[in-house]
């Protein structure tokens, strides 16, 4: 028996695999196709204070081994999410991680506190790294001082609910931001969000996305994600939910070796709507093949002298 369960920031997961925020809506659609109880957790689409329509279309474009998206944080607003979306997910045992977005510290605090108050959400993921909105979002994620401030303010209203901060890869030194948010009280990190990219539509001679730029995700960015997780793992002790281009159980193991404690799968859901349960099913054999009897054994093992993971929980 290969042990898949693990725990991050006090949250027990039956396996380390969860869909990434924004790629799984609020679970309803995928819930029609398979039993969401198979998942380690579910990270839901970003919530803002008020409903947001998001950017104009086209919002997605294909790139080599990747895609660009500029959804622009479309969501019905935190109140509607709590009332209309969460009850469905609560009918499962799978922990729900809510992605918190905003344009100001006040908005982040408002959304986080509203979500933390409900019993429906087991953790928060603070999205200070969305490249697709004009205000807020990524600027909080590229400046260590702003990142630290918003983390600290949000942490105050989280109560018992653990707070993961989602980092942007569009930075010169991601470890610096990671250390800043750890010091500010983050219980964990989520990394990475998308890299800002663009593709130009030759016939129209204009950027293909209406928003011009979009976030690059998918296998193309996997080496960047692995590098950043490896780097951050050596400088912080809080758990990491790793993501960026994962499509297989082998990829999951690579992220665990780099130092992720759990992983999220985004873009791959679009190529194969059943990818999450497939990865979970394949994971025990892959762990076994490379000599591990549990997920926990593999975490951080890609580091020299073995990385010592100091759990806070």
């Amino acid at each position: 028996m290969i042990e898949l369960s693990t725990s991050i920031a006090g949250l027990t997961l039956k396996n380390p695999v969860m869909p990434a925020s924004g790629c799984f809506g609020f679970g309803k659609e995928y819930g029609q196709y398979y039993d969401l109880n198979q998942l380690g957790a579910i990270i839901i689409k970003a919530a803002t204070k008020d409903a947001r329509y998001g950017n104009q279309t086209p919002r997605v474009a294909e790139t080599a081994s990747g895609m660009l998206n500029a959804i622009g944080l479309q969501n019905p607003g935190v109140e509607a999410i709590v009332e209309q979306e969460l009850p469905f997910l609560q009918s499962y045992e799978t922990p729900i991680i809510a992605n918190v977005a905003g344009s100001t510290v006040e908005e982040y605090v408002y959304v986080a506190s509203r979500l933390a108050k409900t019993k429906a959400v087991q953790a928060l993921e603070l999205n200070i790294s969305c490249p697709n909105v004009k205000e807020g979002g990524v600027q909080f994620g590229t400046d260590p001082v702003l990142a630290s401030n918003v983390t600290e303010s949000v942490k105050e209203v989280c109560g018992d609910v653990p707070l993961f901060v989602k980092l942007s890869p569009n930075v010169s030194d991601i470890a610096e931001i990671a250390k800043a948010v750890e010091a500010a009280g983050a219980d964990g990190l989520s990394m990475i969000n998308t890299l800002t990219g663009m593709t130009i539509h030759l016939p129209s001679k204009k950027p293909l996305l209406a928003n011009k730029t979009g976030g690059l995700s998918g296998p193309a960015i996997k080496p960047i994600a692995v590098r950043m997780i490896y780097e951050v793992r050596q400088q912080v002790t809080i758990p990491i939910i790793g993501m960026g281009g994962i499509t297989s159980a082998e990829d999951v193991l690579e992220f665990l070796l780099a130092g992720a404690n759990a992983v999220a799968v985004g873009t791959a859901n679009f190529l194969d709507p059943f990818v999450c349960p497939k990865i979970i099913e394949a994971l025990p054999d892959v762990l076994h093949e490379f000599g591990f009897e549990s997920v926990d054994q593999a975490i951080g093992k890609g580091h020299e002298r073995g990385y010592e993971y100091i759990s806070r929980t």
Partner: protein
Amino acid sequence: MINQMMTVVQKRTIAKDTVEMVLQGSTISFVEPGQFVHIRIGTGFSHMLRRPISIANVDGQEQTITVIFKVIGQGTEELQNVSIGSSLDVLLGCGTSYPVQGLELRRALLIGGGIGVPPLYYLAKELRKKGVQVTSILGFQSKENVFYEEEFKNLGACHIVTDDGSYGWHGNVNTVIDSEQIPFDYFFSCGPLGMLRAVSTKLIGQPGYISIEERMGCGIGACYACVVPAKDGKGFRKICKDGPVFPAGEVVL
């Protein structure tokens, strides 16, 4: 929606850059007119996004569906090169359908443009099955782009119109609507945005359904890639899930 490997059993070019492909599967009977398939192109990571293509016909006996697509880029180029006998990974029966069963009607007007024509064919067949009288107006760029004229003619009156007048009427679908004054209970339209706008404006207030396109991610309603604003000014619809078929006037074109 179900995820199925389907076998390419037939493939032929029916007009300029336009390919008709027949796919055989195991469960196809639930598919309704207006729905689309979300097709994976290539293997590995050669294409990270599936391609949405309308269902142009269904044969419950043979367990096949027909799709008709225009080769406009890398994805459709690769799709046309898939050889007979190989299989394709499809999400089958995505999106909403034209509500053939739910409607009371005697006369239907079908208005299609270019690659918006295919879904109307399956619709026309289903309408005929119900005894509805079908008239179609099909617009194409030019003579060489015209396809399925015979097929539509077998189901009712069919007017072909081309932008350059090289075949049938000269002009666009509205030219025919204006001249012919075809009586109908419901209209059903699918085609490029410009055409849908023109048709919706012309037929404003009349009951009908339109089908629209947008670049898609998931194809099942989870990613918010394919939204369109709703007419009420506040809401929105997901084309892949709430659409592609919408009642005329429901969304902003």
